[in-house]
Each structure stands twice: as structure tokens, then as C-alpha cells.
């Protein structure tokens, strides 16, 4: 037997070790290659943690039983999901076959070209039972409203399908009020009437950035104000916008809970659920998760849900907060992912999804009396979707704009600035941001 030196021994050991440790990676790579060409064994979904992805987790195993494809859901908190998706898309990573997206993210992902078109690639067409706005919100560039300058020459494609039909609505205590408020004047009158010690006439969700922004935009729109006009000119310093913010931060604040500038959705729901507040705006997930939740809420059956009341503009405009499913460009399993979305959209499967806590987009299901008994906000949601609601401005700068606007509204609620000063300052900052991004603000 030939003797080997110590150095040779170490070298051979290292090579053998490296070969053995590489085997799983090689096998995995072979596995991926196989699933690209044929049916994959699993589809990985990047999802938002919370009420929005709960029903998806429940129907996943049903799809597995039918097709043999495992639906693996990787959950992230809201902010983390967004940054995770952006970095994955920047690297054209193939970690996810499907991704859940909040609708304001669509401009960012659309501009990045991060998603696979569902219509041209996988044959998706519009279903008459699903409101047009649901498809429009997943289309890029947007089919209506201002289009970002860099996107105007792009062809429109469908990139996302709504799986959580979210629209911001209004809720009030129907056991106390004789009639539903039809206007913001009625809201104010009810707030004044029912406000008393330890019972607030109105709840403001005023925490800085996203919460304050989401809570105030329906009021802003209903008063005829807006963040931008149709040519991307900033409108926050218009009379209508200032009036709307003054109404929220001065008029309604008189009847609102203390520390409204530090209140987020969970705090609002708590106040409503323990019977300490009369009315507020709300999202469907808040209704099912807290306000109508058996065992924790004291106001079950006492709340009514209606579309956003009308403002001086003559309109009551709700805000979309749909969650969509899209297929990242980097996914190797696009076709299988598209099949899953199609399966989710089928009426029977969507009904099962609703029975597991999901929020539908099909009008027939939203108007289904049986489903309406367990989901009392469904008729209001159907009306809100048909209205139609507004989406947040379709610009990839929305996160920056929302941060500036939501901070300004928070400053006005906290009394650090007058509503006018807050809006003037926000308008100036947003103009600078938008001009820096090539918009004609």
C-alpha cells in the first residue's frame, strides 16, 4: 500500500468532504430543474402575516389534495414583506412562485417590471361577476387616472388578482342611532350627540404615516380634496384638502379619544369592541378580527357597516386596500402558480375560502344572504366596490408620499401644527420628492 504524506491526507479529506457536502445541493438543483419543466412539487407564497393570509393557509391543503402540489406559505409582517419583495425582485430571485401584494405596491412592482403578465402569459380574462375595479387595480400601467411619466408608453397588462377584497368602510353603533349617517355632517352631529365621559363620539386612527394617511384619505376625497390632480400636480394645499383635514383634526377631534395621534387600528378596534366608542372608519379585516369576534367583542350585532358617507363634494369615496396575488418574474413555476390563482377564483373555491374567513371579490358571494349573516359588512363592501372606491395614487413614489402626508396629518392631530400649515408643508415636501423622481409636480 502506498504511503501518503500528511499534507496529501488533509487535501484528500477536504476534497472528499466537499464532494459529500455538495451532494444535497446538487440533488436540490436537479430537483428544481425537474419541477421547472414539469409539475412542481410545491409553490412558495410570500404572504403577509395576519388576518389577510389566514384563509389562504386554510385552503392551501385543499389545493394540495386536489393537485398534489404543496402550497408553502412564507409569512412576513407588512413592512418586512414589502422590503423583502423589493430586494427579491431587484435580484430577480426565484424564492417565491407567488406573492401577496397590497394594492399600493403595484406601481412600484409594475415600474420595476417585477411580475409576469397574467393575461398575455396565462390567459386570464375578466369575469363579469367580479367588479372591474378589482381587475383595474391589478393592471399596470393603471387603466384610469394619472399614469407616471416613465410608464406612459408601456402596454397595459394584468399583473395581480385580488384575493382579499378590501375597501375602507364606515361603522357605527346601530343600537344607539336611529338612522345611518349619510354625510360627514351627520357623522359630526352623531359624534356630538353620543360623546360623553368614557364614550367617544368618533375614533381617529391617527398614528403617524400609514395609519393617519389611510384614515384621512376617504375624508380628503369626499371633501373634494386629493393628494394629486390628474396631471400629478400636488393638491394637498388646496382649500378642499385643507378643509377636509381641518374637519378631521379639529371638528371630529373634539369628540375623539385622547391621544388620537398615537392610535392605530388595534387600538381603535379595542375601543369599539369594548363599547367605548360610537363610530369610525374600518377595514373588513378589523370587523371579522375584532369588532364581530365571538368571545372578545361586546358589540356583536350592535354595529352597522356602510360605505363612506358623502362629503361636501357630494360623494362618499372609500379607499381600496386590496391584497393581490402575483407571479414574480423570477419564478420558474409561473404556469403552476397561474393555475393556483385560477383555482382560487372559481366560485365554489372562493365560497370555501370565504367560509374559512376570506374576503371575496365575487359580487354574487358578497350579496349571498347566508354568507352575509356571518359577515355583516358584505353588503356594504359590495356597494363600496361597485361605487367604485379610489385607489391610492398610482406612483412608485407612494410610500414616500404617504410617509410625508401621514406625518403631516399626525402633526395636525397632535396639535403640533395647524391643519393648514401641516398640509402646506406636506405639499412642499411631496413636490420636492416628486420632482426628484421626474414628475411634473
Amino acid at each position, binding site marked *: 500500500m502506498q504511503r501518503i504524506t500528511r499534507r496529501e491526507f488533509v487535501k484528500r479529506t477536504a476534497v472528499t468532504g466537499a464532494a459529500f457536502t455538495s451532494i444535497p445541493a446538487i440533488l436540490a438543483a436537479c430537483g428544481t430543474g425537474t419541477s421547472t419543466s414539469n409539475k412542481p412539487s410545491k409553490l412558495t407564497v410570500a404572504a403577509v402575516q395576519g388576518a389577510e393570509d389566514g384563509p389562504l393557509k386554510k385552503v392551501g391543503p385543499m389545493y394540495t389534495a386536489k393537485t398534489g402540489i404543496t402550497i408553502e406559505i412564507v409569512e412576513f409582517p407588512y*413592512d418586512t414583506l*414589502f*422590503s423583502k419583495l*423589493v430586494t427579491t425582485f431587484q435580484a430577480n430571485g426565484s424564492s417565491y412562485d407567488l406573492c401577496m401584494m397590497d394594492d399600493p405596491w403595484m406601481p*412600484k412592482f409594475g415600474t420595476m417590471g417585477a411580475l409576469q403578465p397574467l393575461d398575455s402569459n396565462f390567459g386570464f380574462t375578466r369575469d363579469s361577476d367580479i367588479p372591474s375595479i378589482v381587475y383595474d387595480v391589478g393592471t399596470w400601467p393603471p387603466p384610469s387616472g394619472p399614469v407616471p411619466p416613465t410608464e406612459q408608453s408601456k402596454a397595459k397588462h394584468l399583473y395581480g388578482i385580488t384575493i382579499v377584497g378590501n375597501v375602507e368602510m364606515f361603522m357605527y353603533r346601530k343600537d344607539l342611532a336611529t338612522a345611518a349617517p349619510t354625510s360627514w355632517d351627520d357623522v359630526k352631529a352623531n359624534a356630538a350627540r353620543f360623546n360623553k365621559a368614557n364614550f367617544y363620539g368618533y375614533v381617529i386612527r391617527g*398614528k*403617524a*404615516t400609514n395609519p393617519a394617511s389611510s384614515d384621512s384619505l376617504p375624508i380628503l376625497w369626499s371633501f373634494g380634496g386629493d393628494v394629486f390632480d390628474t396631471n400629478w400636480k400636488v393638491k394637498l394645499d388646496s382649500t378642499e384638502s385643507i378643509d377636509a383635514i381641518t374637519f378631521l383634526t379639529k371638528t371630529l377631534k373634539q369628540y375623539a*379619544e*385622547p*391621544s*388620537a*395621534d*398615537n*392610535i392605530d387600528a388595534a*387600538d381603535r378596534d*379595542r*375601543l369599539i369592541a369594548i363599547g367605548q366608542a360610537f363610530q369610525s372608519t374600518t377595514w373588513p379585516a378589523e370587523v371579522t378580527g375584532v369588532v364581530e369576534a365571538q368571545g372578545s367583542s361586546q358589540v356583536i350585532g350592535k354595529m352597522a357597516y356602510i360605505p363612506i358617507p358623502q362629503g361636501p363634494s357630494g360623494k362618499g369615496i372609500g379607499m381600496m386596500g386590496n391584497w393581490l396575488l402575483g407571479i414574480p418574474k423570477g419564478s420558474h413555476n409561473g404556469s403552476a402558480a397561474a393555475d393556483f390563482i385560477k383555482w382560487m377564483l372559481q366560485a365554489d373555491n372562493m365560497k370555501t375560502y370565504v367560509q374559512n374567513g376570506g374576503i371575496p371579490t365575487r359580487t354574487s358571494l358578497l350579496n349571498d344572504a347566508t354568507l352575509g349573516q356571518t359577515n355583516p359588512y358584505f353588503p356594504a363592501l359590495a356597494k363600496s366596490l361597485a361605487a367604485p372606491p379610489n385607489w391610492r395614487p398610482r406612483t*412608485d413614489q407612494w*410610500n*414616500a408620499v*404617504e*410617509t410625508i402626508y401621514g*406625518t403631516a396629518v*399626525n*402633526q395636525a*392631530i*397632535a396639535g*403640533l*401644527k395647524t391643519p393648514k400649515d401641516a398640509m402646506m408643508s406636506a405639499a412642499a415636501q411631496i413636490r420636492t*420628492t416628486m420632482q426628484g423622481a421626474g414628475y411634473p409636480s
Partner: protein
Amino acid sequence: MSRLVAELPAPTDERPVRVGRRRRGRQERLAYLILLPALGTVFVIVTIPFIVVLIQSVTADDGSFLGLRNFTRALANPLFYEALRATGVYALIVLPSEIVLGLGFALLVHRTVRRAGLRATLYVLAVLPLVVPPVAIGVVARLIYAPGYGVLNIILERLGLIHQEIQWLSNPTLAMLSVASVDVWQWTPFVYLVLFAGLQTVPRESVEAAQVDGAGWWTQFRYIELFYLRPLFLLILFFRLADVLRVFDHVYILTGGGPGTTTQLLSLYLYRTEFKFFDTGQAAALAVVVLVSISILYSLITRVLPLERA
């Protein structure tokens, strides 16, 4: 000179010298080889990201060279100065509070607690806040200060000290004090542990000699113990200053930077610039500015508080 030369042994054979050199060379190579994984790790997780940040700070998203334009934009933004001011106020509250409280506890335990068991218990209790995740601390702090159901207001009301809820997180001054109090709670034990360990190194004979000479507790501290603690203060300042610049979790959970931007510290502002505004160039420029500033600050601290004891 010639005598010295004459006394030196004549070099008869060069072999041992060569062998020595060869052995030393082999040992050096081995040392480098052993160091390689650590140096490689530092290179991958520190040097490469730093170089990337430097490149990003002088380029646009498309990679084109911008010179110092990102720096100009970052420094021209009024929000940066608001964040800087908030961070300064935060540091001015937490650093002196933690050092004074930590020193007080360390002296108290050092001078009054003699039982080893009790000292060990205090040690464990002091370590606890340091190992709790900052997010969990933020959530607990929110339960303490939150409007409506905050435990602190409920206790104060039950004690009859207040009749109306104090808006801890809505008043700009109280909001800053509230977020700072969380930091003080979590990091005072760190100061205590470091200084307590330092006090154990003070020679017993010096203290006893001073006591024989009639030195009181203040004289004893001022002229003997403080002498031994000085380098540790530097260490504490180094660590805590770096931590103050990284504070994020509990501020984000408690106030989200509000009311307005009152508690928007530098780290929160940097996070928003990168992950909300997606302004990578400006965020990178800010990171470089912060890094340079902290380096200057550290060298100033080093000059004021010399590391050597003598």
C-alpha cells in the same frame, strides 16, 4: 568594539538560521491560515457592505456617477436635522441617566451587599433586561404607556395621583421621555455590571489605607475608585453611543417616530429614507455621514477620557 566582535561566536554553519527562518515562516503561514476564516468573515460582512455603501453614496440607481450630490441632498433635507436633534436629545437623556444610575447601583451593591448569593441574584436580575428582545420590550412598554389602557396611568389613577389620563405618547416632551425611559430600563443594568466588575479590581489595601486616614465615602470614590473606573466609562460610552444610534424597535412600536417627527431618531429616519422613500443614494450618503461623525466623536471621547489608568 573589536573585543565584542571577538567574543561573538563565529558563524560556523548557516543551517540552524535557515531552519529557524523556515520554521518561523511556516508558523506565520499557519497563523494566517487560522486567522483566514475570521478575516474572511469580517471582509464579507463588514468590508464588502461598507464598500457597497460607499459606491451607492456617490452613484444613482442606474449606476451613473453623481459625485457628492447624494450628500448634498441628504444634508439639505430638514428632516435629517430634525432626526439629528431628536437623537441628540435622546442621547442626552439616556446616557447620563444610565451612567449615574448604573454607577449608583454598582457602588451600593459593592459597599453594602456582602453575601455572595445575593450578589449572584442581583447579577442575574441585571442580565435579564439585556437578553430580552427589543421588540418584546417595545410591546411591554406600549402596554405601560398606551393611551386608554396603559398600566402606568391606571396605577397613578388608583393611587389618586392623577384624575385625568396623562398622554405619555402624544405630548412631544413626554413621548421623548417615555421612549428614553425604556432605554434607561434596558441598559442601566449593563452599566451596573461593567462598573461593578470594575469596582472588584480596586485594591483592597488602597481602600483600607484611605479609610484609616479617615476618608469618607465620597473621598474614597473620588480619589481611589473613580481612578480605576475611568477606562470603563470610556468603554460604556463607546458601546452606548453606538447603541443610541441604532435604537429602533421600541421607538417604532411606541410612537412610530411621532407625534409628528418628535421621536424620529436617526435610525428610524434612515430606515424610512431607504425602505419607504427607496432613496438608496441618500440613505447610503447618510450612513457614511453618520459613520464619519461617530468616528470623530469616538476619537474626541478617547482624548478626553484616556484609556490608560496612570
